């Protein structure tokens, strides 16, 4: 069966994910070492050890995301995170930075290493380099590949691949996108936050809801229309005579119906995005996808999903997996 890898921003969300049927849960420490460094989220060292014990007792694995890029002079924070993940009993660490991969391979050889989507490894040569140089066992593929491209990659590599199937949709070269830095001075790559809430402001202005990021107006939404989060890549802009979503609409990924095609393409694991979401979201999405992978394994038709209400824009897309670009 394809492994279902599920998000947890808090210990309560981890318990919800495991209870709802997650095969594996990914989570991070409460600092800038992980790419979901949001206020009120993430795990202390004690909470991580408790979460691992809870998951292991129920047959689930815990993967610790340490997937930002260490600052020069600040490396010890990232090194401690890898050591503490191993001490907590984590089943793998999810890393992006070359130096941190080298450190983990040298100092923690028994700790399984996954390559984060933040490394943006999108072709067999890059993946094989990470595999040969750092002993990476699984690669999380960027959300910019089609199913056919994923199949082509899997034919030329010897490690597992993991792909996103649900949640927030990053359409950029992850780990290299500077849009959030441009607007706010903070980025997912260095600080663990894309479009940080500290720079987000909403204001009811007449009949519209204005959503701003770092002072830039990203959306104006009519009353009662679904409200998006103000990320630059999904903003509505005017260019010349045209106004519209230049890069991507404010929609979320839902690749449920592509699960059979992803299985045929050789994908080992399906990832759900959303460590910043609540335990209610985690429980509903995990339960739905566990039913889907069980159906896929048994050769039954996939159950109809009803998850659009949970998504940004209240609408979903299959993203680049089956995309016709503008």
């Amino acid at each position, binding site marked *: 069966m394809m492994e279902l890898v599920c998000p947890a921003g808090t210990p309560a969300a981890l318990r919800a994910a495991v209870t709802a049927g997650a095969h594996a849960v990914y989570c991070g420490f409460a600092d800038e070492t992980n790419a979901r460094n949001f206020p*009120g989220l993430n795990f202390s060292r004690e909470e991580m050890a408790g979460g691992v014990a809870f998951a292991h007792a129920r047959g689930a694995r815990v993967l610790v995301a340490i997937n930002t890029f260490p600052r020069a002079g600040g490396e010890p924070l990232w090194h401690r995170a890898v050591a503490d993940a191993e001490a907590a009993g984590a089943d793998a660490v999810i890393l992006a930075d070359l130096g941190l991969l080298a450190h983990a391979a040298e100092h923690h050889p028994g700790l399984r290493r996954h390559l984060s989507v933040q490394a943006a490894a999108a072709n067999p040569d890059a993946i094989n380099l990470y595999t040969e140089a750092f002993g990476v066992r699984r690669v999380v593929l960027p959300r910019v590949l089609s199913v056919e491209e994923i199949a082509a990659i899997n034919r030329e590599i010897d490690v597992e691949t993991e792909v996103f199937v649900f949640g927030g949709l990053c359409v950029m070269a992850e780990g290299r996108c500077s849009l959030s830095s441009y607007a706010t001075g903070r980025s997912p790559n260095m600080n663990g936050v894309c479009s940080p809430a500290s720079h987000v402001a909403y204001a009811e202005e007449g009949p519209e809801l204005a959503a701003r990021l770092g002072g830039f107006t990203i959306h104006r939404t009519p009353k009662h229309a679904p409200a998006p989060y103000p990320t630059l890549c999904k903003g509505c802009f005017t260019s010349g005579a045209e106004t519209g979503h230049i890069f991507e609409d404010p929609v979320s990924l839902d690749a449920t119906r592509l699960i059979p095609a992803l299985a045929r393409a050789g994908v080992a694991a399906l990832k759900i995005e959303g460590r910043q979401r609540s335990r209610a979201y985690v429980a509903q999405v995990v339960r739905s996808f566990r039913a889907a992978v069980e159906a896929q394994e048994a050769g039954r038709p996939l159950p109809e999903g009803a998850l659009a209400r949970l998504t940004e824009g209240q609408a979903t897309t299959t993203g680049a997996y089956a995309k016709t670009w503008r």
Partner: protein
Amino acid sequence: MPRSHFPRVPPALRLAAGPLPPAPLGAMLGLLVRHLAREHPGILRRMGPHAGRSFLIDPTDLPFLLLLRPATGALSAHRRTWPPAHDARLAGPLAAFLAMLHGTEDGDALFFSRDLTIEGDTEAVLALRNALDDAEIDLTEELATVSGPLAAPLRRTLALAERITGLALHRAEPTGDYT
């Protein structure tokens, strides 16, 4: 266009709550908040510096506003005609707040659907939402704990109120356990 599926506070209850004096109501709510802070120290720890912010909670189907100051354990009631100064404002039907508190609804989804409106310090609101989500609060059980010998009749009363109004007054238990 999204349409809210949340039940509204029944008009009779809204009318009955109208004349309630804010000060005694606030004193009772403050007791509950201080109890929650004692029983769930993780809330203030997760909020960090954001615990010092003030949150105006606007249950749009109730006749009053609530001002929450987590760091000092204060939750005061205010007339709509005199909204107090605040750092962040959250507005929506009472049912939406209770569903989010009890883990049956996702805060982001409530925002996307416009059931919930946020203004002011967005980062502090996120910290509060995340901290409360991790605390797995059960309002019925928390109230029962501070009610001493009245706990049993209180549980029965709140269960009845939940059935009549459709408001989520206790924590949802996980379902579909695969373990």
